[in-house]
């Protein structure tokens, strides 16, 4: 019997940390209406496979297809370590218990970062990432998207096309419709790539695109777009009413024209019918049965759900109301019914509300319902500052399991908030934040840098405010999970600023005609920060660019190390320590000259010279377990075999003879450096663990980078990749070690009370040592040997 099948696909690249809600919601709707449905999260399917031992093995032969020789070199250096460790690293990332071990987490995240370098180096123009990635082809150009479809060399999704569609569904003779959910531009190239494959292999199947991004993209079209060669219909706004009707008409072979929200190509041009808001009280619950819940890149799963749709406000910078119909809330009992059902069925306690904004009413009613039912779960969501947020509400939210709330602070200036037509008050922000933080809920502050009319001073004051809130939450309220994140203002064509630029003192610059799908516009302003200045504020505000990362092996694609909100929420829910950089245990290395040394790192002779006149070659080493890189000057044409089996004395002589160098270190200095960082090892090498930094003489590691960062200096280690901010004490400790071997007692003796006890100096030395910025040289005769007190690192509870 013919039972038509609909295949729903979430194409890459979507956030790897949790499933998207759209496909499960539509699956729930189709199930409820007796329509046969198959779900496929092609995004996590592809990501999880590419980032696996098997995927890495398939990629190995392609590394080098990228044209960035330094990225290719990085990938070749790390590939063996990735192959050996990637599957274990992913297991760590998915293990909720591992949240309690930030060093293990840091190790795992670096393995995944390295794997992403390998993927990036295998395709020309690719910058691979877990949230959004840049391909050679731009998703803002129709011509580029269409060119990408057939290009296996530059389009990762074409290369991995097997993962985009499930073979059994594609072979099912009853397959009638493929529905593709495109929520962001990061999904467009993969969506078109898979549509092309369906078209070629199953010309009998109808293809439907829907989703937030599709809604905003298709709205711009005034005539049939070339994408109609691959897509039969586009569904705008919500799909729960349009899609089932569309499927029925496709199966019956009748005209789909006239279904609200559906856009098709007719003989005379585009045919569209305005979308209609879905009645939420009748909406089906999401069905995650076919989603691979164990494969997302976070413990959990963290399941998405909603209490309302769209947004009741009309902020000048935002296009949300445009693409999601009018604001509607649904009964809290219905929301919590779905939550409870998901808890039971999918055995999870973690939820994210994907409401654009949870109103006070939604927050209160949902929280009360959860408390009344006694559900043991955790959740987070997004709301806005309001006069009605009280201590009592904050405590109710905490009792219901809320551990994180995102707020659009946008600006600390009331004048700028008014320009944004945001409708919030700065005094409410102050009060709301303190109530949340005191109740144990960690706020996140979104900031927009450089809204038209904002001055540089106002932008800086906003950053300073956010930093102060984060700092006070951690220090004064033991709430270390409060965060902020800023982005430069992006002018979206569907936002009020985009629709009425003159009202906001803005003049739009039309994009290059080639970028016909671009929804953002460049612009000029009558007053305040320009677009370029806004981007500069964002970069400096992030605090990560104060060091010029002038070593190739530490530049770019560090973004996997960025924290994502799913992890911050989980840390808050489980009271786990915050993310940390990689630290190494303090130990003193000693070895006799006849100690036989062997290479304990991956070597790579580089294709470029280490000096301007080309006299010296270069050799890079990577120690994967401790994530340390180094580039040595190296004799041209010389294999790194000498590092594999030679005595310390022989290596010293070799290094001297061939000018092998790192940051001014030569001969024995290089041998010692390579041993300290684990690039070399050997049976005769003694590693003496150091229980206390107080009894030792320390020296600064060579090659460290130092720069100013407002009131503090910033120190960066190219070898470990660690960056630290030093206050006056840390700076004094660093200076002492950089000028000569120093002890805690010696340094503190020169300091005023109460630093003379040496306790803080010993802690600073230990911190710098664990971060690979100083190292113990030898015991200091007669120095105090009391153990260093437990570290109180910033962010620890």
């Amino acid at each position: 019997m013919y039972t038509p099948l609909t295949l729903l696909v979430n194409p890459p690249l979507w956030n790897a940390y949790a499933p998207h809600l759209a496909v499960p919601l539509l699956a729930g709707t189709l199930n409820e209406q007796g329509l046969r449905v198959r779900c496929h999260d092609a995004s996590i399917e592809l990501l999880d496979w590419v980032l696996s031992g098997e995927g890495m093995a398939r990629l190995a032969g392609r590394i080098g297809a990228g044209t960035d020789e330094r990225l290719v070199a990085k990938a070749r250096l790390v590939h063996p370590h990735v192959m050996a460790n990637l599957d274990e690293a992913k297991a760590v990332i998915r293990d909720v218990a591992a949240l309690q071990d930030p060093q293990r987490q840091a190790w795992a995240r670096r393995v995944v970062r390295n794997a992403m370098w390998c993927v990036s180096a295998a395709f020309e123009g690719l910058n691979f990432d877990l949230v959004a990635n840049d391909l050679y082809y731009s998703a803002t150009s129709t011509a580029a998207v269409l060119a990408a479809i057939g290009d296996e060399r530059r389009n990762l999704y074409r290369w991995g096309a097997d993962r985009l569609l499930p073979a059994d569904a594609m072979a099912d003779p009853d397959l009638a419709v493929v529905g593709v959910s495109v929520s962001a531009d990061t999904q467009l190239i993969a969506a078109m790539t898979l549509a092309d494959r369906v078209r070629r292999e199953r010309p009998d199947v109808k293809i439907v695109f829907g989703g937030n991004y599709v809604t905003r993209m298709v709205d711009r079209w005034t005539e049939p777009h070339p994408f109609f060669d691959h897509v039969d219909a586009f569904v705008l706004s919500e799909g729960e009413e349009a899609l089932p009707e569309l499927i029925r008409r496709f199966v019956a072979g009748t005209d789909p024209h006239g279904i609200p929200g559906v856009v098709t190509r007719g003989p005379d041009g585009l045919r569209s019918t305005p979308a209609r808001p879905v009645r939420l009280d009748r909406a089906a619950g999401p069905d995650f049965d076919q989603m691979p819940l164990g494969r997302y890149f976070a413990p959990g799963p963290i399941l998405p759900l909603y209490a309302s749709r769209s947004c009741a406000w009309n902020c000048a910078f935002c296009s949300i109301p445009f693409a999601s119909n009018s604001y509607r809330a649904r009964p809290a009992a219905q929301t919590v019914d779905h939550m409870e059902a998901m808890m039971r069925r999918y055995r999870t306690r973690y939820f994210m509300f994907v409401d654009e904004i949870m109103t006070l009413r939604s927050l209160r009613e949902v929280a009360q319902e959860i408390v009344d039912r006694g559900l043991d779960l955790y959740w987070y969501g997004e709301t806005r500052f309001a006069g009605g947020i009280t201590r009592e509400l904050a405590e109710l939210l905490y009792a219901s399991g809320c551990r994180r709330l995102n707020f659009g602070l946008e600006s600390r200036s009331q004048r700028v908030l008014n320009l944004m037509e945001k409708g919030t008050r700065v005094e409410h922000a102050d009060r709301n934040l303190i109530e949340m933080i005191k109740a144990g809920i960690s706020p996140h502050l979104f900031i927009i840098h450089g809204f038209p009319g904002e001055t540089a001073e106002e932008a800086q004051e906003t950053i300073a405010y956010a930093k102060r809130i984060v700092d006070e939450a951690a220090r004064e309220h033991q709430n270390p999970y409060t965060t902020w994140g800023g982005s430069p203002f992006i002018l979206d064509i569907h936002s009020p600023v985009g629709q009425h630029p003159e009202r906001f003192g803005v003049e739009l610059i039309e994009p290059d005609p080639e970028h016909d799908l671009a929804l953002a516009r460049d612009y000029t302003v009558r007053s305040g920060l320009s677009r370029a200045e806004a981007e500069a504020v964002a970069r400096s505000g992030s605090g990560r660019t104060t060091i010029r990362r002038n070593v190739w092996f530490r530049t770019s694609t560090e973004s996997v190390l960025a924290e994502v909100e799913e992890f911050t929420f989980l840390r808050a829910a489980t009271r786990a320590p915050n993310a940390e950089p990689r630290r190494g245990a303090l130990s003193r290395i000693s070895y006799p000259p006849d100690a036989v040394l062997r290479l304990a790192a991956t070597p790579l002779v580089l294709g470029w010279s280490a000096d301007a006149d080309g006299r010296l070659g270069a050799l890079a080493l990577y120690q994967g377990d401790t994530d340390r890189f180094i580039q040595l000057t190296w004799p041209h044409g010389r294999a790194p075999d000498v590092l594999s089996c030679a005595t310390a004395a022989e290596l010293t002589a070799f290094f001297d003879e061939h000018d092998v160098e790192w940051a001014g270190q030569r001969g024995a200095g290089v041998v010692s450096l390579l041993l300290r960082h684990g690039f070399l090892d050997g049976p005769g090498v003694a590693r003496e663990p150091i229980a206390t930094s107080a009894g030792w003489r320390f020296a600064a590691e060579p090659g460290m980078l130092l720069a100013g960062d407002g009131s503090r200096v910033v120190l960066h280690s190219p070898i470990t990749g660690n960056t630290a901010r030093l206050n006056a004490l840390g700076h004094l400790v660093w200076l002492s070690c950089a000028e000569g071997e120093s002890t805690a007692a010696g340094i503190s003796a020169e300091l005023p009370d109460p630093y003379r006890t040496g306790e803080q100096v010993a802690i600073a030395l230990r911190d710098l040592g664990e971060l690979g910025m100083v190292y113990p040289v030898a015991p200091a005769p007669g120095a105090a040997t009391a153990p260093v007190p437990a570290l109180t690192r910033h962010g620890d509870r």
Partner: protein
Amino acid sequence: MREGVNTMDKKELRDRLKLKLAESPLDEPAVETVQPEIRTASQYAMLPSMRAGFRLDEPEE
């Protein structure tokens, strides 16, 4: 300050830092590791070009 180079007289710098030391709270961490950035998927989804020109690291030189 230039990278790795102390452009100020060392003694003068030390004296200045010691003065600053007196002003900073005793429990302030001397060595503070740089926390990672925070990102949210919704930022990327709703404002798809938001990431344009905003990278977490400097581009290759």
